[in-house]
């Protein structure tokens, strides 16, 4: 059962502050779409509009082609998982899970059976009779997930569901959540400010900034081909350099950077531009293969790799290198760009 959600020009402002502006997107049916953005970027407001908890000022929301913009949240049949769990403190674990079935008038035995199955799905069947205050944060989030899934929601919406958990627990639960959502092939929309969650869970990724969609696409596309410097620096680390594309002769465009000139990537427009290169796409090479040299200003050992800060002329580059031979500050190192990974963006975006 693949549910298609389409948003057209959703707008929401609070007073004179526009929280979300012209949000249009077609959410991939049966897939997980992650919405990533800094706080205040409007991602939670967008989710609220999709959930029916926030009434948009403008725009429309379609569910399999039917307009549901004004349909109240309680009649949408969407599952919702919150950052702070929002479990009912006066009910036991299983009673919490049964809630959605209870308000749908499903009889006691049937709903108990379904709730127990949902608890088993999230591996906490043994906690069914506990009170909410007697279980840990990770267990509470599992209850919240079971509660949102038990009535077979048409769409599952998750608002930073793992943010309140500690790092180790978050990682484990993230993997499990990804597996579960993929098994169910539910249309899911997952809001987060954690880029690892956004990239690892999402089949599709939307980056928001100041209430607008900055870029959307598969996580790989967005990571390797950011369209704006904001996306480049927000998703992972990035070196941004000013450059210019010059047409040498028809069919040959060169990219001039402050300290080196390389063949321009295909499709790069002629004129001033900004160039993004990821730290992992600058390599320390043998002298004969090098495109330029840089002086190591600092090196930080990160366990699986080392991160160097290198100055080349007046520019500073961040370079990731293996942890085998870590250059020390002061050393000159021969460097090379992986030219295929250079990403050219128009200037002034």
């Amino acid at each position, binding site marked *: 059962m693949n549910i298609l959600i389409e948003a057209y020009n959703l707008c929401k402002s609070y007073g004179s502050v526009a929280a979300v502006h012209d949000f249009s997107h077609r959410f991939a049916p049966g897939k997980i779409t992650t919405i990533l953005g800094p706080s205040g970027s409007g991602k939670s407001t967008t989710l609220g509009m999709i959930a029916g908890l926030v009434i948009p000022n403008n725009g429309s929301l379609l569910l399999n082609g039917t307009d549901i913009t004004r349909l109240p*949240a309680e009649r949408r049949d969407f599952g919702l998982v*919150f950052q702070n769990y*929002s479990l*009912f403190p006066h009910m036991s674990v299983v009673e919490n899970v049964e*809630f959605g079935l209870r308000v749908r008038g499903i009889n006691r035995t049937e709903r108990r059976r379904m709730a127990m199955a949902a608890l088993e799905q999230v591996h906490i069947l043994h906690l069914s009779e506990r009170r909410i*205050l007697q279980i840990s944060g990770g267990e509470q989030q599992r209850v919240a997930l079971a509660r*949102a899934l038990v009535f077979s929601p048409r769409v599952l919406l998750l608002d930073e569901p793992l943010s309140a958990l500690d790092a180790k627990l978050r990682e484990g639960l993230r993997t499990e959540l990804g597996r579960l959502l993929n098994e169910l092939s539910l249309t899911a929309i997952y809001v987060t400010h954690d880029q690892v969650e956004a990239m690892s869970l999402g089949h599709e990724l939307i980056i928001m900034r100041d209430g607008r969609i900055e870029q959307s696409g598969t996580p790989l596309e967005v990571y390797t081909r950011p369209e704006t410097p904001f996306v480049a620096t927000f998703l992972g680390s990035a070196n941004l350099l000013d450059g210019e594309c010059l047409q040498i002769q028809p069919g040959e465009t060169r990219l001039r950077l402050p300290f080196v000139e390389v063949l321009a990537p295909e499709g790069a427009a002629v004129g001033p531009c900004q160039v993004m290169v990821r730290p992992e796409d600058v390599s320390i090479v043998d002298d004969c293969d090098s495109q330029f040299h840089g002086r190591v200003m600092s090196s930080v050992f990160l366990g699986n790799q080392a991160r160097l800060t290198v100055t080349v002329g007046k520019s500073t580059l961040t370079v990731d290198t293996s942890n085998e031979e870590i250059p020390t500050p002061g050393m000159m190192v021969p460097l090379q760009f992986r030219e295929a990974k250079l990403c050219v963006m128009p200037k002034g975006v």
Partner: protein
Amino acid sequence: MHRNIGFIFCLTVTIALMAMILLPLVVVVLGSCINASLLGLSTDLWSGSLHDILDFSAFGYIFENYGDWALFSLELAIACVAICLLIAVPAGYALARYPFPGSGLVEELVLLPFSLPGITLSMGLLATYGELRGPLLVLAGHLLYTIPFMLKVVTATLRSFDVGQLETAARSLGASFPQRLFLVVLPNLRHAMMVGSLLVFAVSWGEFNVSFLLNRGRPQTFPAVLYDTYTNQSIQISSAATTIFLAIVIPAVIAIQWFGGRESVEVEQGA
């Protein structure tokens, strides 16, 4: 060693204080059933049993002569509880859940009767609703003193956990407004309503000034029985009246402590 001395000092002070508070109550309770004149402690003209040391006839006298007063007071207190639940709970919910410009002021204004002497309040009520003087106006006076208790308990509880967030969760699960109210909001308010009801009951049961001033003729409220018997009757009879008064109010106070304690434990665990 110092700590021991400090501890003994504190314990002594506490015991002395407790004795100061409790001793009069013990004397009153004993005085209600012990024939003081037989012990040679009194020259009361009370004509109860002339032979028994232990003598409960004063209670019979109270029930016979003031039974309708006690009943009136109980009815008044129960009516106060019912009306407070009907008015102050929804009002508290509205104030806590949907604050509006000036709602803080409204909450403070509700507390105003506490800072006014009963006589001022009564005069105000008499001047405004003089023709209603009687049980109805007494009830109105009691409500002015009891609604703030219920309102405060309800708003404080609603603010101690995020009821709005729980309601949102319930909405997302498909619950309509009545379902959210009866399955989520009210169950989380049951302690607050219990504590509030007991407070309202105890305050109404013990209220004297307003009841005395706003009522017309008989029956008066039960605290007026105390006034009446202490001014006109023997110590044993007034002690019996006081004992009956305490028998009602003390369990209520203990229950408030008990429920209040449970409430704060739950809130702490929830936080």
